[in-house]
């Protein structure tokens, strides 16, 4: 998404004055990417040989190559890459020089790991009082679980979302695409900006400590207060939803896939039910009980108080099973839009790539990958009228910006760069 002002020069991003040093491993990559989208200069520091996260698939055309890692591509787009061995004294000296040039450090090491390499964060923050230092980890920097290993499945287990997802007759199930670290990273971007805003006003930097387990807890919507207010725990209900105290079905098969439906009465969903029944009547006989019910009156409080009304929703769900099987996903989505019915197709990534609305809004960015060609990426996640998100170049190759950053920004002479490389620092 490039947007240009009247002179034809692309407008700068909101964070254009900021420079960020990104030390994160895979679990923190998204944070710096979001800040780069907003125009910050983000320098990704990689160990010599490249960030280990580059070695995990999937890869471009399935070629196992650290320069072909698709997660690297997506989450490091718009960043610059420098190599630096923090374990080597010469590397740490280089790191110190970088610190003088940046406003924010992002890192996601396991607590204690940096200290083990000889980087004492407290001391760094004392020496650079305006610096914001953001840590993104599963459980936070300190506390009884800070040292736990927290891959995605572990975080969603401890964060409570696993317990609430899946079919009741089987084990709880996670979203197969890892989510917890992405929540933590996006939170890291937001919280870093709160701290940068403060540093800009007062000159006071600080430490920011994000725990992505808690971001999973926040995503439980309304579930956490249930034990305290209603004395009960919500449980997983598969394709059904009975959170509000009555039972309705949320996912249905249709002719060529699946769809999801929000069945409510009252102001929230009365219209949806009436419009669906009218639609079904075009091809089917609708039970009288369903036609005669006054769905608009059946808000949550009404249904919770009256089990007979609650049963109407179960009957409605069962009736709709047959109706949806008669139509395909596209027909149902377009028909629902026309009738203002609360229904959504269960889309796959293939459906999303072809989505008409995303195309109309120019969502996918064409990113130039040189000899590999042009690749379409999910693009601007917000439209800012004055400071648009930047249409940034592809993710960097390993150490691609060593010269630009060490030579250009820090003014290191070529001879010294050679020494640093010889010392194994780059």
């Amino acid at each position, binding site marked *: 998404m490039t947007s240009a002002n009247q002179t034809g020069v692309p407008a700068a991003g909101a964070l254009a004055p900021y420079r960020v040093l990104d030390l994160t491993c895979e679990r923190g990559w998204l944070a710096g990417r979001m800040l780069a989208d907003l125009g910050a200069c983000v320098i990704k520091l990689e160990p010599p040989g490249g960030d280990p996260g580059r070695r995990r698939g999937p890869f471009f055309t399935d070629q196992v190559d650290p320069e072909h890692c698709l997660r690297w591509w997506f989450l490091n787009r718009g960043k610059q890459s420098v190599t630096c061995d923090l374990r080597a004294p010469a590397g740490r000296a280089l790191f110190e020089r970088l610190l003088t040039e940046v406003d924010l450090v992002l890192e996601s090491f396991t607590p204690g790991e940096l200290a083990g390499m000889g980087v004492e964060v407290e001391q760094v923050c004392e020496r650079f009082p305006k610096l914001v230092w953001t840590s993104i980890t599963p459980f936070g920097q300190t506390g009884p679980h800070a040292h736990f290993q927290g891959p995605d499945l572990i975080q969603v*287990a401890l964060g409570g979302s696993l317990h609430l997802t899946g079919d009741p007759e089987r084990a709880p199930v996670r979203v197969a695409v890892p989510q917890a670290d992405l929540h933590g990273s996006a939170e890291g971007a937001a919280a870093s900006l709160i701290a940068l805003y403060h540093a800009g006003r007062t000159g006071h930097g600080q430490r920011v400590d994000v725990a992505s387990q808690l971001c999973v807890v926040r995503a439980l919507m309304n*579930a956490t207060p249930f034990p305290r*207010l209603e004395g009960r725990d919500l449980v997983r209900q598969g394709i059904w939803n009975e959170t509000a105290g009555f039972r309705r079905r949320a996912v249905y098969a249709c002719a060529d896939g699946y769809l999801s439906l929000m069945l409510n009465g009252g102001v*929230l969903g009365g219209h949806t039910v009436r419009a669906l029944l009218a639609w079904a009547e075009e091809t089917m006989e609708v039970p009288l009980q369903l036609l005669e019910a006054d769905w608009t009156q059946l808000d949550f409080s009404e249904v919770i108080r009256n089990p007979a009304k609650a049963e109407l929703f179960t009957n409605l769900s069962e009736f709709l099973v047959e109706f949806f099987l008669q139509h395909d996903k596209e027909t149902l989505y377009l028909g629902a839009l026309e009738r203002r019915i609360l229904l959504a197709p269960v889309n796959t990534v293939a459906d999303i790539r072809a989505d008409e609305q995303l195309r109309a809004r120019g969502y996918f960015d064409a990113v130039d990958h040189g000899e590999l060609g042009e690749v379409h990426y999910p693009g601007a996640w*917000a439209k800012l009228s004055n400071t648009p998100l930047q249409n940034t170049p592809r993710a960097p190759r390993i150490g691609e910006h060593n010269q630009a950053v060490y030579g250009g920004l820090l003014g290191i002479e070529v001879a010294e760069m050679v020494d640093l490389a010889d010392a194994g620092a780059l």
Partner: protein
Amino acid sequence: MDDQVFAGLKVWDMSWVGVGPLTSRYLADHGATVVRLDSSKRPDILRTAPPFQGGVPGLDNSMFYGDYNCNKLGLGLDLGSERGRDLARRLGLWADVLVESFTPGNLAKWGLDYANLAPDNPGLVMLSTCMQGQTGPRAHYPGFGNLMAAHAGFYAVTGWHDLTPVPVYGAYTDFIAQRFTTTALIAALDHRRRTGDGQYIDVSQFESAIQYLGTELLDYEVNGTVAERCGNDDRFAAPHGVYPCAGEDRWIAIAVGSDGAWAALKAAMGHPAWSADPALDGVRGRLAARRQLDERIAAWTAKQDARTLMYRLQPEVPAALVQNQSDLYQDPQLTYRGYFAELDHSVMGRVPYNGAQHLMSRTPAQYRKASPCIGEDSRTVLKECLGMDAQEIEALVEAGVVEAPARDPQRAAVEA
């Protein structure tokens, strides 16, 4: 300790349900003055949804609403009336930030859109959040994050291969979008701090949510791979699953992501004979044998206490008790970080609010005020923000334009 980051920042929150109120809560938790619109004629629908204190429905008794709106001032306002819309506009000129989530086009009808407000308030940062964005053929798509989670591809990758895909709990994409709206909004505020310029921000929940499927979208783009539901399997790790434990609906999650973790798990199991197969010492062998591994491990965990087993396995083996909501209140890590904020609500009493997911060493989030009942702070808002006197305010209350609690007659006499 410094003053809070957004102390003095004025926010007019005309949004409802999830993303908008969650975004303004970041600002409120960090010290901004946030005025939240509500009305008993058109209450935020979260007020009609559980959990309710004691299980009793009531507009001021819903913690679903409460949880998203602590630290805010509640203004009861009838936007259906000309005078109500006039007050909304005056607040739009008072505000540094306006957040809204109406169906695109509604605010323009009322003269409350950015184009109408900006000439008189050029520093205004205005955020609009809706399902699919303010422009394009689906701009008017109605919906909630539950449906958007299906639309944006999350249901398709959740569940078992041989069963129907299942919903992710709740309005899942709201909890993705809120972090993108907040990031964009604060970036715009920082730009304003430096330049004085306001701007308009349009966030589509769809567009921000699929950032969490970006790698999978690229994998489809370049390799034609369509991500699918696959239970708890991981492409690169085995054993990787959720195993039954002692007690009703108690489970442990185990995610062996390295050969070292496998060695540690074998040791914890006491080196059973089946685990001695050298093929299992490499990830390829374990992936090939994943179903057998799942059976063996389930048999081993079945009679054990999930919490005890987690502490036995961690940190060498990534393992976790599958926590229900009650467990979260016993989680020592959450307790250590003081995650839940307990506040006294005028109707619900002492209730737990979800807290910030980040700690800040100098300017931590603070919890000063429980969520408002409808119109709870109307008088304060009209007086402090718009500089109205008691007579004007009472006339608006009398006319039904503004909702406010019945006045204490003695105090009214003193003010008169």
